[in-house]
């Protein structure tokens, strides 16, 4: 099979011991709560929650290595970019306190490269690093820990109408099928001399040459859908409320998780409204470097 879901059942996983609906609600609360702050002292607890969840998730390093390194590289690069250019942070602070200025000993076409290291830039880069990596670590775990077979009932459970929740479920079933169709079409076209790996020419030529693989897979999927539509119509889909194969029930621990999520979100928004948690730099450092 061309497509493999990254989820598998893990006995010792904390995330997987909760009801998926409770986890989705907690995740949404966590996301918006983290976005309320720029102060690194307020962001650190979120960072610890994210890493606690990561280490108790039971996902092995070799399973997530690629995705994890990609995200971490991305987050580091952005923090470095804001630090070097000083842009981006300009919206949350107005005054900068210089620690040291590095100036190159050469100049290119009258421009001398220089780097100003200021208290604000350093702290903005650190805050950004903590903020984005907290969200990224929590997000990256979702495909590894939510059972694809429960996506439909999970979305129904958090309030989506039947039709949309069922469409989510169907999407999950179609993905491996279309993966296989893609492979079959690719093999058939290869037998006729088509080589995706060797497409050349200008960009318009290259895109045009994707047609022989792109169009048959899409049109075949649409034609094949008629059978599914007929089958669903015959079973009176959409006439009344539907029942689901899997039943999810909230247990005490799920209720506690939801309550914790809501408390986290309400607390964070109240703190932010009261003026806490905006961008922060230590007083002592500012004093040390003010002229």
């Amino acid at each position: 099979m061309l497509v493999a879901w990254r989820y598998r059942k893990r006995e010792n996983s904390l995330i997987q011991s909760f009801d998926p609906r409770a986890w989705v609600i907690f995740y949404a609360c966590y996301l918006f709560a983290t976005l309320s702050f720029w102060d690194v002292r307020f962001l650190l607890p979120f960072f610890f929650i994210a890493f606690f969840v990561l280490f108790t998730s039971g996902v092995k390093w070799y399973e997530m290595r690629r995705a994890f390194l990609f995200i971490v590289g991305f987050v580091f690069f952005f923090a470095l970019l804001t630090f070097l250019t000083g842009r981006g942070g300009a919206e949350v602070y107005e005054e900068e306190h210089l620690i040291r200025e590095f100036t190159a000993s050469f100049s290119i076409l009258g421009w001398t490269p220089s780097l100003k290291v200021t208290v604000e830039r350093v702290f903005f880069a650190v805050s950004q690093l903590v903020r984005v990596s907290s969200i990224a670590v929590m997000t990256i775990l979702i495909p590894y820990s939510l059972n694809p077979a429960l996506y439909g009932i999970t979305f129904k459970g958090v309030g989506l109408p039947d039709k949309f929740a069922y469409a989510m479920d169907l999407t999950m079933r179609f993905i491996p099928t279309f993966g296989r169709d893609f492979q079959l079409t690719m093999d058939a076209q290869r037998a006729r001399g088509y080589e995706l790996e060797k497409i050349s020419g200008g960009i318009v030529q290259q895109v045009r040459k994707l047609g022989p693989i792109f169009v048959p897979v899409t049109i075949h999927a649409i034609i094949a859908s008629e059978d599914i539509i007929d089958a669903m119509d015959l079973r009176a889909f959409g006439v009344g409320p539907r029942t689901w194969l899997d039943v999810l029930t909230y247990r005490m621990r799920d209720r506690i998780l939801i309550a914790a999520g809501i408390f986290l979100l309400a607390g964070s928004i109240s703190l932010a409204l009261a003026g806490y948690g905006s961008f922060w730099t230590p007083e002592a450092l500012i004093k040390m470097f003010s002229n």
Partner: protein
Amino acid sequence: MDKKLTNVLISLIVILALFAVVMFALGAGEPAEGALFNFSVDQASVVSRFVFVVIGIAIAFAVYFATSSNKAWEVGTREVVWMAIGAALYAVFSWLFNGTVFVVPSLSQVSLRPAIAIPMFFGFAFGPVVGFFTGAVGNMFGDALTGFGLSPQWSIGNGLVGFVSGMWMLFSDRKKSMDAVLYVSGALALLTALLFFLNRGEANMLFYDVDNGIFGDQQISLFAGLAIVIGFLLALGVRYLFRDNEEVATAVTWGMLGNILGLLFAALSDIVINGFSFAAAIVGEFLPAAGPNLIFAAILVPMLVVAYKSTRTQSGR
């Protein structure tokens, strides 16, 4: 009044009430020292500002009311299956062409991401609701398959691509609406391209070439920056080349507007979420994503529309 209309009306009244609380209650106070959220509203002009909110909501309701009988908003068995097919296809294609499964060539910082044609085509062929689901859910599953994690704002942005592509169904005069779409898209393409010339130093955040150690940090190339104008001209060409085939012209022009508005939404939301500067969001993210997408749209969408039309003629549906 039917149930659906009542539901829409109730949701709009709730939004209005929320605005009223924010503007009249929270807005009257001074913001706390250094607060991240500043709801303070100038109380002298608060009434006239509130009138604008009322007008905005009234327009939203009027659009719905005028078009509520339009079959573009209908969701039956067919739409549910099309939504699922669209989302699954978008997920599979974006996973296969993201460079990890097949190494597809890239030209001057522009990698081939042809999958965007799927939400545009599904939006055009099956309506805004199917288009939105295809883009939003397909992007979500595509990211999940790749293992990159989810970014909700980009999923919504991709959803908007499909949604706007299907909005042609709401207009009775196809030609006039197409011209209006061309003007708006042209203006947005030119404005963002102008921003590129004013900020040539920005990095192309969407270009990765791991073998050569490039992780979205290379300065944006002239081609990547101008791809939006090239894409617009291609779409304009399709609009007039296919004058007699209105379906192709409609699909490409509305798909173009959807692509611009949807990705603009996603890139601008990164200013709030990731703290990017305005220039970095537009030049570093929006242009390298939206520009090449327009090129794929102008070439692949017509292919799909023509193929779909002939299968419909054959099967008589």
